[in-house]
């Protein structure tokens, strides 16, 4: 239970284990959601079972006792479910979800080396136990043979766990050792549950000297034999200095899959059996573990010895705690000071996975491509070696091929980082489920386009904003069932979460069919809170977008779900930091649509290269609305030197880049240059006056701040084909910059415009912090 320290030789494997756990949990969550929605197959149940089983197996390899203990119980419940002994019903699914929570928390604790409270997850265990108890017999029904068949007996073993085993101390002195008799009758299904008696027998052998008797009476004829069933049962006589708990531990994993009796014999019994039994097998001498002992040779002495302790059994069993309360296991670390282990919810803060899983296909393609590159390169080298005789034609072809391969290579390398958004989307059903329950709303979540791929970094950053927006829709957007009925809608609200590729970006939409944004309320609140000035005139769309302003909350009461109105502001900031945009569109009484537009990757950007004076700049394509060459009549000069252009009835501010950047020789008259209309974060357009468009190109983003510092109006840098550095313009930054002549700009252009500017500046100013 130690944290994975630097000296831990298994640290590397643990990392792998936790990565796997994360994947398994994600799968499991998805399957659980399917289970809940009722759209599941038997395979779904199997998949959940496998996930838990894999986690258990890994956990036991690293001795995460709590995790093992819990996953074991959980697995058992799932097994019942899988075998059809339990029906999938809401209560059970609830339990499974709770179990899932505990499981992921326990994994989180194990990963961080945190100490778990002894009682943690007890409620989930109790629930699981209740279901198992309700089913009765807990899987015992299938095998009625064997002598020691009682649930109590099973429970005794379940209750045990100990960390004090030292298997190295196998050398046992007969004098001070205790004598245990263990009757072990596996159920038929043991092998199918991935348990292997041989391993158990070996472990027993490690505890001390054993004598083993095998009972093969259950073995059917060859025709009737099910190769996957377990037919043998064993009786072990064990002389060991170890405690009873250690023996229990050996059987820890199989207790639900077998009938097991462990009794302590006193020394007199011991003497008898040792001397008499002809089928005594010294474990050190015989690795057959009694498999090959002639059953008929079992002596009367041994048999009678089995009979004797049987009467002691109930007492031994009763002494142990019943199955219903799994022990606060010995191996569990001491209870931490209150509050150090946050029960529930802490799984969310899981460490970000530093590795990615890539399709072998993609890697193969890469390898292929590198091969092609090498071939082309050697072809070119050969050709160039010819010197004067080289054929310009062939070199040209070679270069073409080379550039094609490199382009493909780039695309493929990028695609390695691409992951389906499923990993984020799959968390949402859970949130919808929990939150809607809490709010007493009926909600159906529809997800579309989960396989849309986007860069890994984007995905990681997407989870938080998306969660928040979903919560927001649940809390503020959707009405309660009563309200919905009154409004003539179906009681069950719908939230549609969709992802799709659109023009080199990913568009994620969250659409609810709720009440929409209450514009009057938003407006009055915004005025009240000073987000906008009292006499502001805003369009509907502008009002809707006010919910992204900082310090804004329209909920009648502040709930713990949607936070305190800082949420949407943070969402917008998060999205913007990813180079994306978020907008909202509301249809009163019908619903609200949030739309996120994100770049597919953060490393490469599609840019329009523009020329200004003797410089070139890159304008991100995704923020360009259009490029116009405004006729003179549409250009209006403002008092003070600024200018606006009129486009489709709207006035748009024009920023001459050459003036803003203090370049000489650039065009300053909008009617003579080109105006690139670009969208700012507030959805407002700004016109960038440039001299020329120099073409469209994918550019690799390089930070300017690594070696220098941020420069106003410049987002980052890139390197053009000729090796020169070129700057990528920061549209939002630019829109806030002043040109010297503009200092006295007349603010009374158009009243509405002025207000918009102010609002956006306020919002933008905070976002920039």
């Amino acid at each position, binding site marked *: 239970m130690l944290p994975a320290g630097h000296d831990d030789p298994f640290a590397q494997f643990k990392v792998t284990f936790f990565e796997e756990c994360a994947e398994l949990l994600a799968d499991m969550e998805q399957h659980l959601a399917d289970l809940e929605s009722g759209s599941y197959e038997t395979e779904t149940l199997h998949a959940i079972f496998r996930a838990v089983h894999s986690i258990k197996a890994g956990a036991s390899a690293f001795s995460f006792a709590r995790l093992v203990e819990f996953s074991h119980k959980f697995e058992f419940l799932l097994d019942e479910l899988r075998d059809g002994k339990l029906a999938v019903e809401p209560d059970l699914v609830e339990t499974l979800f709770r179990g899932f929570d505990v499981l992921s928390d326990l994994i989180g604790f194990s990963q961080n080396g945190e100490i778990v409270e002894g009682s943690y997850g007890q409620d989930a265990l109790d629930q699981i136990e209740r279901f198992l108890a309700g089913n009765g017999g807990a899987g015992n029904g299938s095998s009625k043979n064997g002598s020691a068949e009682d649930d109590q007996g099973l429970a005794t073993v379940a209750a045990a766990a100990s960390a004090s085993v030292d298997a190295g101390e196998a050398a046992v002195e007969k004098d001070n050792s205790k004598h245990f008799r263990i009757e072990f009758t596996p159920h038929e299904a043991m092998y199918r549950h991935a348990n292997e008696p041989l391993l158990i027998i070996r472990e027993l052998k490690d505890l001390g000297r054993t004598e083993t008797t095998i009972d093969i009476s259950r073995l059917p004829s060859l025709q009737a034999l099910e190769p996957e069933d377990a037919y043998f049962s064993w009786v072990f006589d064990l002389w060991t200095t170890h405690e009873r708990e250690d023996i229990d531990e050996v059987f820890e994993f199989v207790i639900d899959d077998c009938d097991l009796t462990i009794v302590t014999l006193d020394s007199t019994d011991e003497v008898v059996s040792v001397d008499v039994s002809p089928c005594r097998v010294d474990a050190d001498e015989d690795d057959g573990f009694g498999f090959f002992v002639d059953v008929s040779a079992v002596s009367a002495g041994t048999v009678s010895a089995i009979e004797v302790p049987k009467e002691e059994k109930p007492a031994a069993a009763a002494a142990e705690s019943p199955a219903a309360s799994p022990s606060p296991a010995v191996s569990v670390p001491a209870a931490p000071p209150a509050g150090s282990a946050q029960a529930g919810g802490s799984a969310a803060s899981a460490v970000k996975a530093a590795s990615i899983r890539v399709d072998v296909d993609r890697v193969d393609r890469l390898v292929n491509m590198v091969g092609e590159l090498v071939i082309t390169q050697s072809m070119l080298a050969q050709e160039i070696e010819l010197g004067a005789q080289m054929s310009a034609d062939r070199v040209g072809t070679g270069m073409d091929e080379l550039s094609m391969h490199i382009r493909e290579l780039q695309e493929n390398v990028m695609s390695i980082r691409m992951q389906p958004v499923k990993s984020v989307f799959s968390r949402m059903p859970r949130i919808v489920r929990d939150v809607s329950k809490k709010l007493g709303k009926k909600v159906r979540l529809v997800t579309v386009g989960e396989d849309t791929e986007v860069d890994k970094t984007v995905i990681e950053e997407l989870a938080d904003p998306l969660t928040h927006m979903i919560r927001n829709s649940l809390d503020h957007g959707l009405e309660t069932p009563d309200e919905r009925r009154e409004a003539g809608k179906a009681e069950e609200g719908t939230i549609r979460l969709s992802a799709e590729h659109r023009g080199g970006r990913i568009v994620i939409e969250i659409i609810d069919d709720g009440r929409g944004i209450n514009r009057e309320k938003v407006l009055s609140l915004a005025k009240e809170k000073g987000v906008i000035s009292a006499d502001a005139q805003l369009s509907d769309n502008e009002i809707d977008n006010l919910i992204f302003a900082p310090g804004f909350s329209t909920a009648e009461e502040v709930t713990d779900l949607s936070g305190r109105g800082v949420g949407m502001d943070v969402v917008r900031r998060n999205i913007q930091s990813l180079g994306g945009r978020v907008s909202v569109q509301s249809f009163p009484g019908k619903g609200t649509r949030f739309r996120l537009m994100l770049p597919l990757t953060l490393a490469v950007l599609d840019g329009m290269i523009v020329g200004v004076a003797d410089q070139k700049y890159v304008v991100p394509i995704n923020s360009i609305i259009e490029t116009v060459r405004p006729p003179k009549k549409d250009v209006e000069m403002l008092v003070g030197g600024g200018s606006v252009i009129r486009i489709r009835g709207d006035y748009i501010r024009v920023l001459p880049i050459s003036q803003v950047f203090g370049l000489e020789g650039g065009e300053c008259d909008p009617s003579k240059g080109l105006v690139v209309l670009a969208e700012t974060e507030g959805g407002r357009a700004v016109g960038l006056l440039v001299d020329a468009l120099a073409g469209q190109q994918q550019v690799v983003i390089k930070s300017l701040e*690594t070696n220098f510092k941020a*420069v*106003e109006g410049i987002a980052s*840098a890139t390197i053009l084909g000729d090796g020169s550095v070129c700057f990528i313009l920061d549209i939002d930054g630019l829109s806030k910059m002043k040109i010297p002549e503009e200092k006295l700009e007349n603010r009374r252009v158009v009243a509405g415009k002025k207000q918009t500017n102010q609002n956006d500046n306020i919002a933008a100013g905070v976002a920039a912090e």
Partner: protein
Amino acid sequence: MAEDKATDQDVPQGFDPSLIGLEQTGTDDKDAASGKMVQFVSFKVDDSEYGVDIMAVREIQGWVKVTTLPNTPEHVRGVLNLRGIIVPIFDLRCRFGNGLTEATELHVMIIIAVGDRIMGLLVDAVSDILTVNTDEILPVPQIDSGGDQRFLAGLITVQERMVALLEIEKLFSIDDLVAQVTSAAE
């Protein structure tokens, strides 16, 4: 590189302001007597000669056209693509208040590492590599007017010529300061 870094940090300590105090205590100081040898790359700006710690120098490159940065102080000549890294280039002559360098192919950029950052200094020419004992580094006399002495860590005499050792860390931080002032003035 790791070893370089270690030395990097050692050397400035050898001739930092503390050196002034060290010099005043006289030569009987044990450390001073056994001062270690340090190396500097010396270069010319106008008629003056300057030196920077050799361990900070990453490479030396002839002048190529750089991309100018808008709205930055004049001495920020722009940025250079150094094998995929964006490196800002500072005009030392301009930094010292003697006007812009009319850069030609014969001018030289000394690429140096300051902390985690890489930057380039535009100078007229690189002249030599100097190996001196830290004892030979003399303090910069206090002069009231002008602040450029703050960039200097010490002075050494090489063949009757004075070489001023640059304190690149300071040069950089003051750059920052100036930039802030400039932008604030706007």
